[in-house]
């Protein structure tokens, strides 16, 4: 049994808690939150020990691992405290507000030799994993362009009053939404090494951007476009997709559907010349407990398995999330608006 505590029972925290609560190898030993009402509900209806102070929880619960799902501005302090206490950490994305803060957490996690993971769940989606496999096989030939996109209905009117509307707390489309796409590009195409011209656009928000448009270059020298908008209500929920063009074919992929086009008879097993369509139903392994997408359960399974030394701590570790934080900084400093 892995003993797990959680800091921050907001929307992501509560989802993690439910999956952890149902996990056969996990015992939830503590939940901390600053909201009296949230704690009150947990005290009355769940069997989880509750704490209003996370440091008290860290001291009292003897947890092996801690989930940190609080607004990004608190990550640097809270994740550090958890690492200093020698516990494994799962932190929500993005890792930190600045690349400098993240760098010191990467170093501390390495020094403490604990499992460290960040919640970029797209890498646990069957369709994107298949894209990674295909690219590693080199089936597209020379890749010459990509487009990473994400659209959804987070801010669709002018009135907004919460931490997502405050840049100092990690709000804004770049950190909250675009970070997912940046992280996916780093994973699939290689780390982004430069950002060439960015437009950060405010549509409804006053203090943060609602859309991010820019041109990126990855370490292989390939250029691509990033287009992200969280004020698009024609999407029912967040929809992330990637299009990759190579000299021998093309990939269009989102969380549900993978479309691959091969120009010639040079294609991998299970595919054919021309268009191929595969669905997440064919590419996803079933999980033991499903809440809101297999990927949310799979990333937690992976973290717990890494603590149990069943898998290496390579997917979504702090270092890879820190690369994403770096790109976020590069995008901010190249804003033309």
């Amino acid at each position: 049994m892995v003993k797990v505590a959680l800091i921050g029972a907001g929307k992501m925290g509560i989802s993690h808690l439910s999956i952890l609560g149902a996990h056969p190898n996990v015992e939830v030993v503590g939940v901390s939150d600053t909201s009296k009402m949230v704690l009150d509900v947990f005290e009355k209806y769940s069997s989880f020990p509750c704490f209003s102070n996370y440091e008290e929880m860290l001291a009292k619960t003897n947890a092996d691992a801690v989930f940190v799902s609080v607004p990004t501005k608190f990550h640097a302090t809270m994740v550090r405290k958890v690492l200093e206490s020698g516990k494994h950490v799962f932190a929500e994305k993005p890792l930190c507000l600045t690349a400098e803060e993240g760098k010191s957490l990467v170093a501390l996690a390495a020094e403490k030799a604990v499992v460290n993971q960040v919640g970029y769940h797209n890498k646990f989606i069957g369709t994107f994993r298949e894209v990674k496999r295909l690219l590693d096989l080199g089936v597209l030939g020379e890749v010459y362009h990509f487009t990473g996109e994400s659209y959804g209905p987070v801010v669709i009117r002018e009135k907004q009053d919460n931490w997502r509307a405050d840049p100092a707390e990690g709000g804004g489309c770049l950190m909250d939404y675009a970070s997912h796409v940046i992280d996916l590009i780093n994973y699939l195409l290689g780390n982004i090494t430069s950002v060439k011209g960015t437009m950060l656009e405010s549509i409804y928000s006053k203090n943060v951007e609602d859309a991010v448009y820019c041109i990126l270059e990855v370490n292989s020298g390939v250029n691509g476009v990033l287009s992200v908008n969280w004020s698009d209500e024609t999407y029912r929920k967040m929809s992330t997709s990637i299009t990759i063009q190579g000299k021998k074919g093309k990939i269009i992929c989102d969380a549900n559907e993978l479309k691959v086009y091969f120009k010639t008879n040079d294609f991998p097993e299970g595919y054919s010349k021309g268009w191929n369509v595969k669905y997440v139903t064919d590419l996803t392994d079933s999980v033991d407990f499903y809440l809101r997408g297999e990927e949310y359960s799979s990333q937690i399974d992976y973290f717990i398995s890494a603590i149990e030394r069943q898998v290496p701590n390579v997917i979504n570790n702090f270092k890879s999330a820190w690369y994403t934080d770096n790109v976020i900084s590069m995008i901010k400093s190249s804003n033309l608006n």
Partner: protein
Amino acid sequence: MDRIIFGDNQFFAVNHISDEKSRAQSIKFKEDRAIIKTLDIAIESGINTFMCTTHDRIENICDHIRKNPSKYQDFKIYPCMPYAHKYANAVTEMGYAGTLKHFVPGNFVGSLFKGGLAFLSKDYISIMELLIDSEMKMFKGIQTPVIFLQNVITDLLLGLGMNDILVAFHRYVKKKYGAEAGYITMNMPKLLSVLEANGITNPIICSSINKVGFRMSGGREVYEEVLRTKKVRAMAMQVLAGGAIHPKEAIEYVCSLPNIESILFGASSAANIEQTVELINEYSLTGESMEVIA
């Protein structure tokens, strides 16, 4: 429950395998009359139950049903609540407290917060009851013999171990609406054990049941074992696994299982609706499933 239940995902652009199809559906069903037309096709095919989310647009559909009582005399609706995106988006925008204040009718939540007192357990149950009432308003005057809790809420509570709230839902819909409670879940075996342990026997549970094991947590075999050995009024959904299985093969499989009381499906075109109904009728008249519908 009827053998065949018509679902609403296609009306609200919920498509589990393709964003393109989802957009096409959103365009096709932009007008309420397109939804009503499709519902009427389903009724002509012999379907008498519509299971739907408490989406805002359902209110207009309910108005149409109330205005045509003779036409929809035998028509039943199984509401599924809550429409989770409505609340999830609100929590993102307003936080938990703001969301409750916004959606719970009257002054109840406001006065609780104002009082600054610790809430009592019954207060939370009252909040849940008020939310159920507000979601049920649109169905006034329409037969709703089964009221479902959506899977994201059922499974959230299941994972958190908040079993008392699952039970309270069961109790309240019976007391207030004279309805049976139904639970949608992606974790049927686990939910059934929890409900049984909390005194709810032979519950109505709607879950993914399909030949490829899609969204059948723990695996298909576990589900088949539960259906064979336990007491549950099972409704199968996602029988086509989002289109991954050929309809004939999909329906043949589900109809071959014991203890499946109802099959839920949604479709946009007359041809698909009629074909699915025919297949279910055809395979339901063979083998073990005879006992279930007899």
